[in-house]
């Protein structure tokens, strides 16, 4: 199952956007990571860190304001960035599928659920309509939608939020993709529904042996789902490691700060750690280390770009002062 060559490799990806005043906005600025077959990784970060743009770039769905300015996206030896739009359409939905945060806006309101699922099946598997309809019904059953046949003829507005998300997952999985990108798949859902959907994704991932890229800001979800974690900040990857590395032994001050500032259900925390300031404006990212103006360890060295270092096996960090992160334990995040 696990091979040495990764299923998907993102190498030094750069996606820039341009404002009306021709200002350059480096939303994704040299991002690299890989995904193995049957593995779940999480891309974690706050708004504007570039995690969603990265995922859209993998599918080459960046809109006209933005441009992929460099890097490679290699799916089983093929660089997706060198493909024609026609070849890319073959990839989307068949090899790589995506589910979105807002199922209500990702589903087309004027087509029935069945028609939308069948569209991909007819396109990729070249099945005639009756068979495609059967396959769509099967897909709905796979995601645990009761009365699947009846639901095929319903419109998205007739489904609840959780059911819509299931329908979208059914659509994404209808052609058995090798890679599933799930962009904040449960953020708009209630916690009891979130639990249902996460369980469903994990189960299907196992059953279909998919590689899953989970994009989220919720470290709770990450701890329960991901084998490896990629932490992003302001368009860069700042740390990457197994979930144990990240949760128990993080080296980047940002990762450390995030983990200690989130309220936890399982313990009563007297005072939460604070990362001062806010996420920087992408038009004005600080030079050198982009986290330096919020970082308690920052000094002159941080005016220069840190190196991407492997600290322990398969545990990478992008920080000059990673070795001092322990200091934060006693000192906290106060400067």
């Amino acid at each position, binding site marked *: 199952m696990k091979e040495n060559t990764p299923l998907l490799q993102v190498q030094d990806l750069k996606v820039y956007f341009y404002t009306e005043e021709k200002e350059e906005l480096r939303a994704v600025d040299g991002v690299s990571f890989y995904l193995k077959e049957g593995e779940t990784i999480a891309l974690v970060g706050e708004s504007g860190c570039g995690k969603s743009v990265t995922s859209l770039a993998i599918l080459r769905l960046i809109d006209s304001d933005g441009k992929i300015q460099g890097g490679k996206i290699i799916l089983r030896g093929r660089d997706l960035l060198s493909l024609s739009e026609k070849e890319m359409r073959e990839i989307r939905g068949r090899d790589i599928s995506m589910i979105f945060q807002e199922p209500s806006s990702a589903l087309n309101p004027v087509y029935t659920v069945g028609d939308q699922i069948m569209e991909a099946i007819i396109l990729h598997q070249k099945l005639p309509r009756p068979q495609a309809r059967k396959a769509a019904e099967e897909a709905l059953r796979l995601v645990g939608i009761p009365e699947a046949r009846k639901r095929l003829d319903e419109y998205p507005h007739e489904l609840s939020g959780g059911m819509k998300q299931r329908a979208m997952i059914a659509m994404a999985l209808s052609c058995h993709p090798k890679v599933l990108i799930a962009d904040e798949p449960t953020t708009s859902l209630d916690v009891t529904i979130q639990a249902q959907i996460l369980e469903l994704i994990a189960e299907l991932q196992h059953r279909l042996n998919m590689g899953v890229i989970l994009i989220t800001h919720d470290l709770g979800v990450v701890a329960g789902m991901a084998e490896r974690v990629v932490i992003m900040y302001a368009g860069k990857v700042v740390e990457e490691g197994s979930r144990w590395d990240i949760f128990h032994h993080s080296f980047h001050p940002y990762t450390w700060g995030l983990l200690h500032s989130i309220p936890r*259900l399982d313990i009563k925390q007297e005072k939460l750690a604070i990362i001062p300031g806010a996420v920087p404006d992408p038009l004005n990212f600080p030079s050198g280390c982009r986290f330096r103006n919020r970082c308690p360890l920052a000094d002159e060295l941080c005016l220069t770009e840190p190196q991407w270092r492997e600290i322990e096996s398969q545990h990478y960090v992008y920080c000059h002062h990673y070795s001092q992160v322990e200091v934060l334990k006693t000192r906290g995040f106060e400067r």
Partner: protein
Amino acid sequence: MNDTPLLQVQNLKQYFPIRAGVLRKIVDWVKAVDGVSFEVSPGETLGVVGESGCGKSTLGMSIMRLYEPTEGKVFFQGQEISSLQSSQLKNIRRDIQMIFQDPFTSLDPRMHVGPIIEEGMKVHHLASLPEIRRRALDLLEKVGLGAEYFSRYPHEFSGGQRQRIGIARALALSPRLIVADEPVSSLDVSVRSQILNLLKDLKKEYQLTYIFISHDLAVVRQVCNRVMVMYLGKVVEIAEGEVFFSTPYHPYSVALISAVPVPDPDYEVKRIILSGDVPSPINPPEGCRFHTRCPVAQEICQQVEPVLEQKEKNHWVACHFPGSLSYKGQ
């Protein structure tokens, strides 16, 4: 905390009409809040939790009289406020202030930040104009923004900073009670803890009482002394915070707690996955409203609606089989 409650809510109901047809006749009612009673003691933070559609936000608005309650009574410091004329409400609104979820829509985009904070004080003639100005500047400092932000517009601020402005505005009238409706839900993770710590500090400094409405149980555990759980317009459980999180009685509370993802890969919990969705508040299920999703429901639950009863001191639950479900153990 002393004995006289700051706020008392008795059998509060808030129904919204559903109209249909050419004549816009009322065909049905959405029973958003359906007979809710509770008390808030001075100095405490009461967390109101539940999923979307449970009525928690509506409850906040009804207490503030931003909606006219359909039925029921609300007392503030012993005075009934649910029947006050709107002219008399003005003073009450000084004592009860609100912080909203979305700091992007709750601030007037055409006003400077300073005047936004000053407005309430001017309306209530709280002080002379220079004194009001001085207090507004002072509040900007208190919420961690600084006086230099006085003449800026809301759009120049990040979400967290806007929420600080909203907090300063609420504090300007020296309220006794603050109803905070999902005050950190729209903020980035790294900014949430800043605002939560600020709310805690201000509570101490100004001896505030909070009603903290939230869907996020992890946040509620960190800021609330007491927790009240709502489901489909009803209160299903009320308990002291730590008691609630260690031994919840209602199966819905147990399922909620067990479903929250914890940021620790070694955390183990018996996850109780509820099937189905929250039913519609237009036609809530007969009997116990939770019975359609409850893993321990029996026949009686479909027929008889359980009443909210005190099972232990200060621990109230509305369930025929309280404590029969647990998220602990394997």
